[in-house]
C-alpha cells in the first residue's frame, strides 16, 4: 500500500508548487462575522463637557473584524473554498459588506429588520445563528475578539454555543489546519495556550494574528456590482419574541457620561521644585515606596 500512496500523493504535491493551478486539498467554507461601528479614531472628546463629539464620524468595519476577515481570506487562498461575510445591522451596514468584498470575500449576507433593533448579545447570537443556518454548511467561523463600540466580546462565544460548536477566543495564531482539526494559539495574560479543536469550529481573533491587506482594484470593482441578499426575520425563520429588544434579556436603564473631572493640581516652580512637590505628595499618599522629605 505504501508505494501506491506515495504515487498518489506525489503529483498533487507537484501541482501545489504551481501557484496558479493549485488544487485544494480541502476546500474550506468560512464565515466571517463583522460589525459596522463608528470610527473611534475620528471621535474626539469635548474638553469642556467631556462628551463625545461625533459630528461627521464615518462608519467602518470593526477593526478587530478586519483581522478575522484577513485570516479567513488567507485560509481560503491556501486551501481553496469560499469566504462569506455576515453582518446584522441597519440597511446601511451593506456598505461594510461591500468593503469586505473589496478585500476578497466571495459572498456577503445582510441580516436586517426593524425587529432586530436594540438587540443585546443574547438576541444578537440568536439572530446570527439563524442567519448562519440559512447560509448553510461551513467549516470555520471567524469573529473579531470584540467590537469597539460595545466591547463585550460576548457574541463570538455565545454564537458558538448557539451552534453547539467548539471555539477558542483570543486566537493569535493558527498553527495547523488538517482534516477535521485545527490547532491554534490563544493569547492569555501571561503567555499563550495551545489548543486543538474539532471542525467545524469558531475562532475569535486578536490583532497579533496577521496584518490585514489593502483592498484590490478588482475587488473594489466586484464590490460595486455584487448582489448582497438581505434577510429579514421571516427569511431566516426567526421568532420575533427572540430578536431585537423584545428578545434581549438585558436592558439598559441608564446611559451617562463617565466622571472624568478630577481635582487637578498644577505643580509650579522650578523643575527641581515641581518634582520635589510631586514626589512628596505621592509619598504622603503612600503611592510610591519612598520617604521623600
Amino acid at each position, binding site marked *: 500500500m505504501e508505494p501506491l500512496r506515495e504515487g498518489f500523493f506525489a503529483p498533487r504535491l507537484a501541482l501545489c508548487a504551481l501557484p496558479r493551478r493549485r488544487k485544494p486539498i480541502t476546500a474550506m467554507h468560512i464565515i466571517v462575522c463583522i460589525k459596522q461601528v463608528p470610527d*473611534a479614531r475620528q471621535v474626539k*472628546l469635548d474638553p469642556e463637557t467631556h*462628551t*463625545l463629539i461625533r459630528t461627521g464620524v464615518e462608519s467602518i468595519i470593526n477593526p478587530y473584524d478586519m483581522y478575522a476577515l484577513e485570516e479567513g481570506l488567507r485560509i481560503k487562498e491556501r486551501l481553496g473554498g469560499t469566504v462569506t461575510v455576515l453582518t446584522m445591522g*441597519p*440597511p446601511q451596514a451593506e456598505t461594510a459588506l461591500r468593503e469586505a468584498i473589496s478585500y476578497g470575500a466571495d459572498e456577503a449576507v445582510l441580516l436586517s429588520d*426593524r425587529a432586530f*433593533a*436594540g438587540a443585546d*448579545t*443574547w438576541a444578537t*447570537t440568536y439572530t446570527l445563528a439563524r442567519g448562519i443556518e440559512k447560509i448553510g454548511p461551513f467549516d470555520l467561523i471567524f469573529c473579531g475578539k470584540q467590537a469597539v*463600540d*460595545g*466591547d463585550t466580546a*460576548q457574541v463570538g*462565544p*455565545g454564537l458558538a*454555543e*448557539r451552534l453547539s460548536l467548539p471555539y*477558542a*477566543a483570543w486566537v493569535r495564531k493558527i498553527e495547523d489546519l488538517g482534516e477535521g482539526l485545527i*490547532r491554534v494559539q490563544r*493569547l492569555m*495574560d501571561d*503567555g*499563550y*495556550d*495551545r*489548543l486543538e*479543536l474539532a471542525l467545524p469550529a469558531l475562532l475569535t481573533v486578536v490583532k497579533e494574528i496577521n496584518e490585514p491587506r489593502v483592498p484590490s482594484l478588482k475587488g473594489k470593482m466586484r464590490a460595486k456590482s455584487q448582489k448582497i441578499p438581505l434577510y429579514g426575520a421571516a427569511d431566516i425563520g426567526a421568532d420575533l419574541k427572540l430578536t*431585537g*429588544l*423584545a428578545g*434581549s*434579556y*438585558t*436592558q439598559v436603564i*441608564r*446611559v*451617562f*457620561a*463617565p466622571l*472624568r473631572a*478630577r481635582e*487637578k*493640581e*498644577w*505643580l509650579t516652580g522650578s*523643575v527641581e521644585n*515641581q*518634582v520635589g512637590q*510631586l*514626589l512628596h*505628595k*505621592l509619598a504622603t499618599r503612600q*503611592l510610591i*515606596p*519612598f520617604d*521623600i522629605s
Partner: protein
Amino acid sequence: MGSEILIDLDRCSGCESCLEVCPFSALEMRDGKPVVNEQCTLCGACAEVCPEGAIILPETAPSAGPETGYRGVMVFAEQRLGRLSEVAFELLSKGRELAQLLDAPLTAALLGRNLAPLAAELISQGADRVYAVDHPRVEGFTDEVYGEALTQIIRAVRPEILLAGATPVGRSFIPKVATQVGTGLTADCTDLAIDPEKKVLLQTRPAFGGNIMATIICPLRRPQMATVRARVMKRGAAKPGRPGEVIPFEVDWDRVAGKTRLLEIVEELTEKVRLAEADIIVAGGRGLQEGKNFPLIRELADCLGGAVGASRGAVDSGWISYAHQVGQTGKTVAPKLYLAIGVSGAVQHLVGMQSSETIVAVNSDPHAPIFDVATYGIVGNLFEVVPEMIRQLKAAAGRRE
C-alpha cells in the same frame, strides 16, 4: 410594533439636547423636531437627557416578575496553575456586600486540582460555601469543560447572581455559560449595586471605549450574570478561621463532547511586572521624540518598581513592543499610580487608563487632553523633568539604605 423610541412632538421644544448625547448619531432634525433613524439602538441616552420628558422608550419588560427559586451570590473563583486570581478576592469582597443586602449566602465555584488550600482561602475571604470540582479534566482551561462544569453548578445551586472576573478566561467562557443557562450577561462591569426597591443587580459598565457609561439590568432571567473588571473592586481583609463549607461537586462529564483539547500552557513572562497587575505604571508617548529616549521611561519605572506602558504612538513608532500598549487597542489598566510622560492623551489612550487611582501627567503642551484626567500636572520639558525625578528618587533610596 414597539421597537422604536417615541417622540412627543407637542412636548418637544426642539432644543437638540438629544442630538448631542446620542452616541449613535441616530437623531436628526427635520422641521425643527428630532427624527429617529435606523442607527438607533434604543440605548435611552436621549430619553435620559430630554428636559421636556418628550422621548419615550418602548416598553420592554412584560408584567411577569423574575424567575423564582434562585438565591444567593456566587463568585467564579478563577485559578491558574494553582494560584487564585486577584480578581477572585475582589469579587468575594463585593459579593459579600451584595449578599448582605439581599440577606443571602455568598458561594464560590472553584475548578482545578488539589483545591483544599484554595478553598480555605476563599472561605477566609468571605465565601460561605465553596463548590469544588477537583478533576483532571478541569486541570487546564478550555471553554468546553469549564463552561459545562460551571453550567452544572449553576443549575444545581441556583444562585441569583453570578460574578466572574473579566479576565481572558472569564471573558472567554462565561458567555458560553450564560447562553447555556439562558440568561443575560453584562461584560466588563466597573460598578455593581442592588436596586433597593426591585432588588435587582445594577450593572454599570463602560461602552464605546469608555466614552459612555451604561447601567444594565437583567430583569427576568436568573442568575443575573456579570464579568467584572480586575482592580476596580477592593479586596477585603482575610479572616482566618471564618466558618465555611467545602462541597465537592460531581460534574456529569458525559455531557462534554470533548471537541477541544488543551495541548500546552506556555508562559511568556517578558516583564518583571505585569502591566495588568502593576500598582505603578510609567507610560511613554510620542513626546519622547526618538526610540533611543525610551529607556528613560524604563529607568523611571525601575526606580518606582513599576511597569512600563506606552501610547499607541510610541508602539507604532517601533520604540517598544505592542505588549506595553495601553488604550483601546491595547490593554486597559487601572493601577494606583499612572505616570503619563509625553503622552498627549488621545481618547483611545484615555479610555485604557482613566480609571487609574492617581494620574500624573508630564507634557510640554498645557492644553494636551491628558491633563483633563490628571490628578497632578507638570507642564514642562520631560527631558528635564524625568531625569530630575530619577535623581530625587535615587537620592531618597540612598538615604533609606
